[in-house]
Each structure stands twice: as structure tokens, then as C-alpha cells.
């Protein structure tokens, strides 16, 4: 058992788990033919069958059962704050599974030249009054019952009055903001706390204007927008839900990372000697002091950021993504690139931190401007 636990602890380290997820993701939601082939070859699509659901359910439950009997993980798991996260894991996976199952059935029908299941499905259409309203009323009552019972069984996680002189360690945001808090490890507050949330909201609002694919409207389907599906699922599942799970279960005292079955030792020390890009270039590489001029000092950073966000899309539009550019037109293309690249900036920065201890690409604390 301890071997399994150690394995879990090892696997759940963010470097590993994040990498595993990132690598596995295109195989689970294949964005291209090659991945699709591998998906079929290794039978991953079987996840989206009832049997697959059973195994997913069993393995997650297995994990939580072990966790429940583990003295350390039990503490984290059974905290009233964290119970919604467990429910979220189940419900998110269930909903994705359900959607994917329907999508694969429809994809198969479309392959056979048939119409999707929803095409002529009388069961799928109900009258608003009284049928839908009835269903909603019953759902509402049931949901209220659930909330009432929940509040009776598990008291609200109230703590002592806030005291600025004695903050809890770790200090955690409400569960739905733990993804943001996790981002704060890698970015300055103005990016992780302001720019990213704004981009997430605006970006999601912009999706219908960027993805103008008419196919797949009104029915489940994967194949007909697999790239969009992949990007969205990666952003949603890995960069948001997964980060919430990490923030909830794996972040302990001093915001240090702990495996699920590890003791939250407040004395744990992890070397944190992060280095700015400018220091890498001027000090380590060129053996010089940092230039006094801020702009000269951060020139490499500026070039990198501007190159990544603005120059690279231009080049891509001429080369690799020429067809996309032609298809989307300049406005839609640049919007997509802006939001997309910003999103992918998060995993990039995470890896840069893990691999090179990189603190900031542009570091101008004098102006409170750090990227």
C-alpha cells in the first residue's frame, strides 16, 4: 500500500502530473489525424463507453477510498471546504464522459452517412409549459433538499475572526479561485489577478465569434470541431479545474507542494532561488553587471514577449497557419492568437519556472511591471 501511496505522491508532483496530463491530453481528445489514429490504436476511445465510465469511476473512487483511510489525506479530503471539489471531480468527469459518449455515437452515425441522434428525436424536445417548468421545479426542490441536508450534516467551514496578525498557513482563496491563486505562483498579481481573469471572460464571450463552424450545432459531436474542442478542454480542464484540484489538495503550508499522502510539514523547505531573464543574459551569460538603464536591461525580455505575442502570429500566418489565416481573416485571426497565446503562456511560464528557475521574463519592479 505504501508503495502505491508513494507512487501517487510522486506522480502528483505538479511537474509530473501536469506534464503527464499535457502529454496525454491530445491522445484523449485528439486534435489531428495522427493522434486520432493512436487513440484508436490504443483504444482510448473506450473511455467513452459505459464500461469506460465504470473504470473511471472505480479508479477515482479507489483513490479517494485509499485517501479516506490515509491519516494525512483524510484531513484534507474531509474538510468541509474541500467536499465540493470532490463532487466537482465526479461531476466534471461525468459530464465530459456523457458528452463524449454522445459525441462518439453521433460521430459514428455521421461516418455512416446517417443524421445525428438528435435530428428527429421527439424525446429531446419538451414543451416549456408545463413539462420543462415541472422538471425545473422538481430539480429545484431536490437541489434545495440537497443543500439543506448538506448544511445540516456538514457545518459551514467558519473559522475564527480574521486577524491580520495571525494569518492561517496556508492562506487559501475560496475553492473557485484556487486556479487563480495557483497562477499567482508563476505570474505577477496584475497578470494573474487582472489580465488573465479578464481575458478568460472576454475570451469565452469571443468564442462564438471566432469559431464560426456551422457543423455540430444542436447535437453532440467531437470530430467536427476537434481542434477547438481540444483547445477548450485543455484550457478548461488542465489550466483551470486541474489547478483548482492542485490548489485544494496538494498545496500545504508556505504554499509548498505536498503529495496527497504526505504529511503537511510546516518546516518543509524548497529551494526558491528564481532568476530573472535579464540576470541570465547579463550576469550569467555575458559576465557583466546589469545595465543601469531599465530598457537596456530588459531588452531581451521585451523582444521575447513581443516576439511571442505579436511577431510569431505574423510569421505563422505566412507559413504554418496560412490556411487558417486565410480562412479567419486578419481580425478574427489576431484575436484568436492573442487569446490563445495568452492562454498557452501559462503552461509555458510554468515549465520555464520548473526547468530554469525563471522568475520574470521582463522584470521592472521599479514600475511594478513584471511579466
Amino acid at each position, binding site marked *: 500500500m505504501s508503495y502505491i501511496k508513494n507512487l501517487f505522491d510522486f506522480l502528483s508532483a505538479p511537474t509530473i502530473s501536469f506534464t503527464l496530463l499535457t502529454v496525454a491530453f491530445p491522445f484523449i481528445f485528439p486534435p489531428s489525424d495522427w493522434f486520432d489514429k493512436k487513440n484508436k490504436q490504443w483504444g482510448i476511445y473506450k473511455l467513452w463507453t459505459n464500461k469506460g465510465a465504470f473504470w473511471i469511476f472505480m479508479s477515482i473512487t479507489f483513490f479517494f477510498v485509499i485517501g479516506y483511510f490515509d491519516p494525512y489525506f483524510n484531513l484534507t479530503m474531509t474538510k468541509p471546504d474541500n467536499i465540493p471539489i470532490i463532487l466537482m471531480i465526479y461531476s466534471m468527469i461525468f459530464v465530459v464522459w456523457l458528452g463524449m459518449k454522445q459525441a462518439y455515437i453521433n460521430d459514428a452515425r455521421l461516418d455512416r452517412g446517417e443524421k445525428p441522434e438528435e435530428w428527429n428525436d421527439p424525446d429531446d424536445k419538451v414543451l416549456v409549459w408545463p413539462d420543462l417548468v415541472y422538471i425545473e421545479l422538481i430539480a429545484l426542490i431536490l437541489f434545495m433538499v440537497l443543500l439543506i441536508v448538506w448544511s445540516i450534516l456538514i457545518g459551514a467551514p467558519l473559522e475564527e475572526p480574521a486577524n491580520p496578525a495571525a494569518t492561517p498557513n496556508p492562506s487559501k482563496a475560496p475553492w473557485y479561485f484556487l486556479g487563480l491563486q495557483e497562477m499567482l505562483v508563476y505570474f505577477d498579481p496584475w497578470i494573474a489577478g487582472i489580465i488573465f481573469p479578464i481575458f478568460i471572460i472576454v475570451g469565452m464571450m469571443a468564442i462564438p465569434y471566432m469559431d464560426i463552424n456551422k457543423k455540430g450545432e444542436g447535437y453532440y459531436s467531437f470530430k467536427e470541431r476537434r481542434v477547438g474542442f481540444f483547445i477548450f478542454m485543455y484550457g478548461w480542464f488542465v489550466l483551470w479545474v486541474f489547478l483548482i484540484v492542485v490548489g485544494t489538495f496538494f498545496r500545504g503550508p508556505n504554499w509548498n507542494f505536498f503529495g496527497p499522502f504526505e504529511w503537511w510539514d510546516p518546516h*518543509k523547505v524548497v529551494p526558491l532561488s528564481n532568476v530573472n531573464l535579464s540576470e541570465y543574459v547579463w*550576469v550569467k551569460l555575458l559576465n557583466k553587471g546589469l545595465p543601469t538603464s531599465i530598457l537596456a536591461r530588459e531588452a531581451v525580455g521585451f523582444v521575447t514577449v513581443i516576439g511571442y505575442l505579436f511577431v510569431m502570429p505574423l510569421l505563422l500566418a505566412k507559413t504554418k497557419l496560412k490556411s487558417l489565416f486565410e480562412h479567419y481573416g486578419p481580425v478574427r485571426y489576431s484575436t484568436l492568437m492573442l487569446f490563445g497565446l495568452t492562454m498557452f503562456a501559462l503552461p509555458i511560464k510554468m515549465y520555464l519556472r520548473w526547468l530554469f528557475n525563471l522568475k520574470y521574463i521582463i522584470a521592472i519592479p521599479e514600475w511594478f511591471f513584471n511579466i
Partner: protein
Amino acid sequence: MVSIIWMFIDDNDDDFKVYQRKFRQLEIENEEKKLIAELEAVKDERVGYEEKLTGAQTSFKAKQSQLLDAESLLVESQAKFYKANMNFLNQKSILDAEKFNYETAMLHLHEGDDPAEIEQTYQVVIDKVYTLRLIKEEKEAVMLAIEDQIKEIKFETKIAEDELNSVLKAANLVDRKLKLIDRRKMSLANKIGDIVRDLPILDFMAPYFKVEQVVLPNIKYNVNFASVPEVDRCKSCHLGIDNPDYKNAEQPFTTHPNLDLYLTSSSKHTYEDFGCTSCHAGRGRGTDFTSVTHTPSSPEQRAEWEEKYGWHEMHHWLKPMLPVNYTEASCFKCHQDEANITHADKLTMGLTLIEKNGCNGCHTIKPLESRRKAGPDLARINEKVDRKWVAKWIKDPKSFRHNTRMPSFFGQSNNSEPDDIKRNDTEIYTIAEYLFQDGEKMSRKNDRKYLGNAEKGQEIFDVVGCRGCHIIEPDPNNLPEDHNLTNLLKEHGPNLINLGSKTSAQWVYDWLKDPNEYWHDTRMPNLRLSDEEAKNLTAYLMSFTNPEFEEAESIQMSDEALDKIALGWLRKMYPEMEAKSRLGKMDLDNKIDYVADKSIRYYGCFGCHNIPGYEKDKPIGTELTFEGSKPINKLDFGYIHDLEKTNYAWFTQKLENPRIFDKGKASPPEDKLRMPNFNFSPEEIEALVTTILSFSEDEVGENLLASNYVRDDMVYEGRKLIKEYNCQGCHIIDGFGGQIAENYSSPEYAPPNLNTEGAKVQPDWLFNFFLEPSIIRPNLQVRMPTFKLTDEEWNAIIRSFQYYDNQPLAFESDFHVNTSTTKYRAGKKLEELGACNNCHFYGKEFPKQGAQTWAPNLALTKERLQPKWVIDWMEDPQSIMPGTKMPAPFLPDKELLNTPGAVSDWGEHVVKVGGDRETMLEGLRDYIYSIKGKTDITNEIQQYFEKNGYEFEFDEEDEDEDW
């Protein structure tokens, strides 16, 4: 678009912004003047320092190349250090983590783990860090050495610069301020910034022209269901209000006239705590002339404002600004319990008048509840005067005593018709009947027995202390013109004229001998007059008569009016038929009793007088507790239309003529206004209106109340008693009072100044002295009277003296003198040389000099005075009791004691003390405390004066008294 632009223009031209621009100009001019003055002040001084700086700069320039070399070396070494330090820190953080790993590994050793191996891994990291540290420190040393070198090159210049700057400090400060406000002095970037910060929209960030406001959490504005903190924006226009530089600037920039007491952080009423509207009232949130509810002080000012500022009244703001002459009203919010409110003479005057005239006898005023009835006790009136006199007096008291406090109820504007007079006379008659139920007991039959020598009586009246509270002034034209607090002290008791037409000599004699016998609660003290003195004084007082009053027709009752009055009151309670039948059943006596009772209740006589049978009746007047906050529409202006519609105008008019608002009204007699006329002077009315305005609903935070800074309730109570018993009629207390001194040739012969009294005397001695006064100052004719106060009251008075002189202790150990010390012996010698016994009594031993210089008995000192105070007193008697004849003892200084022959002049002990003033004073004090003898020498002194009289008082004073 047009409307938006219009909005910006309108916003930009807010009143306060216009004023702020003007003030900025004014400020620049002012600061420029200051700068010139500051530069002028250091003109000569700076030249030397500037030369020094130029010299330093020249030699600095010579080393320029050296500096450049060093600086380039520095950059290089800094780079090296930076990298070394980075490597070091990096490795150190790894070490920290490794330390944790090492500790946990060693703590939980697993099977197969080799401790030595774990240790080894850890040690490797430690070594690495050590190596890196050495490298880092080496680079650091190089860098620091170069830095020192550069510092040295610059050193001379820097010193010279610093020196010059310290000379120019004041000027630099002004210059810096100028650079902030004067655009001409700004750098280009700042100039642009200064323009941009006030541009439309952008000015939300950090504008120069902005509303200056202060939030006052402790001063609440009541908006019915919530109390909101006041917010004062007055400073948005009154920009120079707390800056003494703008005393002569025009409004609204003028400096506040009393910065010592208000606004500044060193004053007791800081701007941050009190703001402006807590005193001035008005709408603190307003930012233009009209909306802040400025209130004109006069009709002329009103007209001027209307023209100049388009001013108009803000009808919907309930608390407009107070006109300047009533501003003191606000002091009362926080200073409620004080007997006299310092710096608020007008308010104090009003509060005093309310007490003295018994306003709060008829009008309940919660914060100023009546401490005693303002008029005399009428329970035994029949022993003092006769019925006829009483009736005439009630009808027109002023005709008997021109300045009496008894107000006039009759002959006023709403009751002077013949019918009214008939009715009133009947009412007066019945009231007199009621007061004389037991018949007349005053008789002048035995008067001869009680009449002594009037001339001697006058002398006694003038010196023994009567004038502390009373005057005798038959002629109204000789009264003091000023109606102020000092003159009120003189008229604490009645103007004692015309007693011969009022009462009997026997009554006056008895009263003088023991006032409390006739009226238990009287404030009149007992002066312990001998029988002869009392007779003489009686003769003097009885010599004043008022024949006119005596001859006036006595008041008659009319049966017809009696019936009418009785029926009128009966109708108020019963249906017409029953009223009439009840009247029919009454006989004459019943009717008189009934009308007397109704009249006493109607006029509220018991508000000021104790009348048997009416002890528990409620006051009849409107409650005035929140009168100052009463909405204007609740004040009945009646048909008086030419009166300004403000509460203070109404109050003023009411006090001038209390019945005026009945004008033109056809009220039945029972519903007429009945507030009597006190014949207040305009100054008194202004003081009273100020005080009425002070009775407001405004809430003030607990921590602003002055009473919360006085820990002991007895302190204020003591001060109130001092006021109630008019102690300041004779003594100076808190720097106020002592007007009786006017009657003596020199303050020396008047009652003592009680400055520092709390620190001066021992509390238990003072208590006993109050109970049984003895003679302290042998040459005073004026006597400390015996007051009939309770122990609680005396304690309060003593406590309040102690409090204001920082003397917290009630019980203290005795002061013991060691008579074997050098100090004591030096003191003895000084006493001998100083010849204290020229003036002072030593027990029964009389002073060597004549009675005119006699001073207190030194044998009493150990019982009476505080040892510490005696030192302060001898050090500088004039500062404690200005005008005293006590000289400060001459004490030899060190130099004098070093001259040859000092030992024979001053004695060995004084020489030994070596000129230390404090030790010498302590020795002298110790000696005084060891003087033995009788402490109470009242009898000895009295005997002396009985034999020799007080003639000395008129002698030319001998001022040259040397030690």
C-alpha cells in the same frame, strides 16, 4: 456633446475652485515674501559657506580623471560581486532545503539507510556554500574598497554642500513649497503635470484644486433614523483659516482669530476632531456661499450678501450657521457641567442669568436643572412683611426696588386694559390672602430695641463683607452700565434699599444674626456679628425707605371679577351648567381660595418661591432642553410680521417683550401669554439667546465632552457651589472675581486671592476652617462668613480646589522637621535676619510692627499649609498673590557667601549651605514649621481691635519695608 461640455465648464467654475485659484496666487505672493525674508536673514552668513563650496568644487574637478577611473572599476567590481552573490544565494537556498531533507531523513531513518551517507550528502552542500561565500566576500571587499575611494574624492564637496544647506534650511523649505505651487518655478515636466492634473475627467486622480474636507466621526448629524458623521468642507474656500500668515487677508482666506484655542494641532480643539460646523453650525458639506447656509449678522450684511453673492436663505436646512454673535452657543455641547466656561463669557453670562432669574424654575432644561429656587422662601412671609406690601409688590415689584430680579407679571402689553387690571388686582389680592393664611405677624412695635447707630452700621456694611454680594443703590442711574459677569457678582443678593418700608427692624436683626433660622436653605451666610454690630447694621439698612411705594393705593378685590375668574376656570373643567352650579355653591372664602390656587398655578409662582402646598408642582413653562434645535415653524410668531423668521430673532423679541406674540389675538384671559417681563438689558438678552441656542439636540462623541477629562464629579460640583454661594464676590478664583476689593484702600485689606488654594492648604485644615472660620489675616476687617453647607458640599469645594492645582490626595502624612540639620539651622538664622516677626504673629506673640502690616500666624503654618507650597510661596509671593505685601526673603548667593566676614554676617550654617536657594528655602520652611504657639488667635486679635479700632487703615502706607 454640448451638454457634456457645459457640464465640464460648470464643474470647473465651482465657487470653491475660483477661490482656490485666487488663494494660490495669494499663497505664492506670501511665500515669495517669506523667501526673500529668509534669504535676507542668512545673507551674510551664507557667503562664507558658498566660498568654501566653490573651493571644494575646484579641488574636486582636479580629481576628475581619478574619479572616472574609480567609477569604471566600481562598475566592473559590482558586476563581479553581483554574480558571486547570486551564486551564493542560489546555493544557500539549496542548502536550506537540504537541511530539511537531512533533518527529516535523520529523524525517520528507514531500514538500509546509512546515516553517514546522509551526513556526507549534506556536508557536500555545506562545503559548496562555504566556497561560494568566500568568493562572494572577496568580491564584496574589492567593491567596498572602491566605493570608499570614491566617497573620499567627493567628501570635501559633500561637507561643504551640507553646511551650506543647513544655513539655507528655512529658505530651502520655502523654496520647495514655492516650487510646488508656483508654475513659473516648475520644471517643464512638473508644469505639464500641474496642468494635466486639473483637466476635466483626469482630475479624479490627484487634482490640485479639490474639495478639502474633514470627516468628524465624533460629531453626528441627526437625520432622523440615523446619525451621520459631520463632514466639513469649509476649508475648500477658507484656505488660510489655520495659517497665521493670512491675518490680514480678505475673506474667505482670513486666519481664524483664535488659533491658540482652535484648529491648530496644539490647540485644545483641533481641526481633525472638531472641524468647523461643530461650533459654527451650518451645512458643512456645502461648497458654495449659499449652500453652506452662511447667516448674516445684521440686516445690512444680509442686503450686502444678497447683492454680492446672490445669497438667499436655505429654508430646508434646519441648522443654519450661527450668526457670529451667537457662536458661543456651541461651547455648551461639550462643556455642559462647568460652572463658568472659560473664553465663553457670553454663554456663561446667559447660564448665570438663567440660574439667577429662575428661568429653569418654570422651564425644564435638562442639562441645566435648577439647583435652587431663585426667589426667597415664602413659608414665613407673614413674619417679614405685611399683606398690603405683598400685594403692591406683586403688582409692580420695580416700583419698590428698581432693579429687583422679581419679574413684572402685570401692566404688560397684553393685560393693561381696565378689565384686565380689575381682574389682575383680584388675582393678586387672592394670592396675598393665600400667603397670609395665618395672619400678619410682622410688627414694628419693638423696633427701637433693635436699632443701633446707623453710621457705624454703614461702616460695617462697607467692610465686613456684605458688599461681596449686595449693593445699596437707591438711584437706578448709578447702577453699573456694563452688564457683565463681574457686575453680576455684586448683585448676587438683592439691592438692599427700602427695607424701612418693607419689614421690621426685629426681622432684619434676627435675619442678620442667623439667616438659616428664618429660611433654612438660604445662601445668606452668617457673619458672626456681635449684637451691637447687628443693631448698627440693622439701623443702617432700615434707614432706607420708599415713601412713594408706601403711599400707593393698596390693591383691592372686586367681587364681580372674582366670580368671573372663578367661573372662567370652572368652565375649563366642567360643562357650563355644572360650572355655574359649582360657583353658586361657593362662599366668598371658597372663591378666594379657589382663585388664589388657580392664579398661583397659572403664574407659576412656585417656580421661584417655596410656597407651602405647591412643593411638588411641575414647572409651568415650555421645556427648553432642545429649544435651540426647535424647528422655526414650531415658534408662534402670531401676527408679528416684521420680525426676521429666525429662532434667535424670535427669542430676542420674546425676552424683550414676553407678551408681544399675543398682539392682535383675541385670546381669553386664561390662554394669554404669561411669561413675566424681566426687563433684561440688550446685552443680557443677547447672552440669554446665545444660551437658549446652546440647548440643542446635536450629538457629540463621548471623548469630546470636556467633563470626561475631569475624573471626579465632585470637581464640577465644587465649582458650581462656588458660583452658587458667590465665593467669587469676595475671592479671586480661577482668575475671576474678588470685586469686593473695590471697597478697600488696597487689595491687601480685601479677602485673599485663592490662586493655588488647592496646593496651598491642607484639606483637613480647610474643612475645619469652613465649619468654623477663625482669623487668619489679622488686619482684615472683612470676615469669612459661616456658610451652612453639608459635608458633601464642603468636600466638593475642597476637591475642586485640589483638582485644579493638581493636588490629588485627601490624606497626607504629617510633615516632620529635623531640627538638627544644617539646613534647619541655616533657616533659623535666615528667619532671624529676615525678621519675620515684624509682621507675622508667632502664636500669641504680637508682631513688632503696627497693625497695618500684620500677617498670618506662623504657628498655624504646620496645621494649615502644604510644605511644598510654602517653598513656592517664599520663592515668589507676587506670582501667587499679586499685590501681596509679603516680600520674598533675601537669600545670599554663593558669591556673597565667599566674601570675608560672611560667617559673621550670615552665620556658619548659612555659609555651609553655600548659596543653594532651594536648601535655604527648605531650611526656612522647616524652621517655620517648628514654631510653637497658639494656633487660633481670633480672640487676641479681636480684643486688640476692640481696644484700638481699625483706624490704621486710613494711614498713608509705608512701602519701604526692607529686610
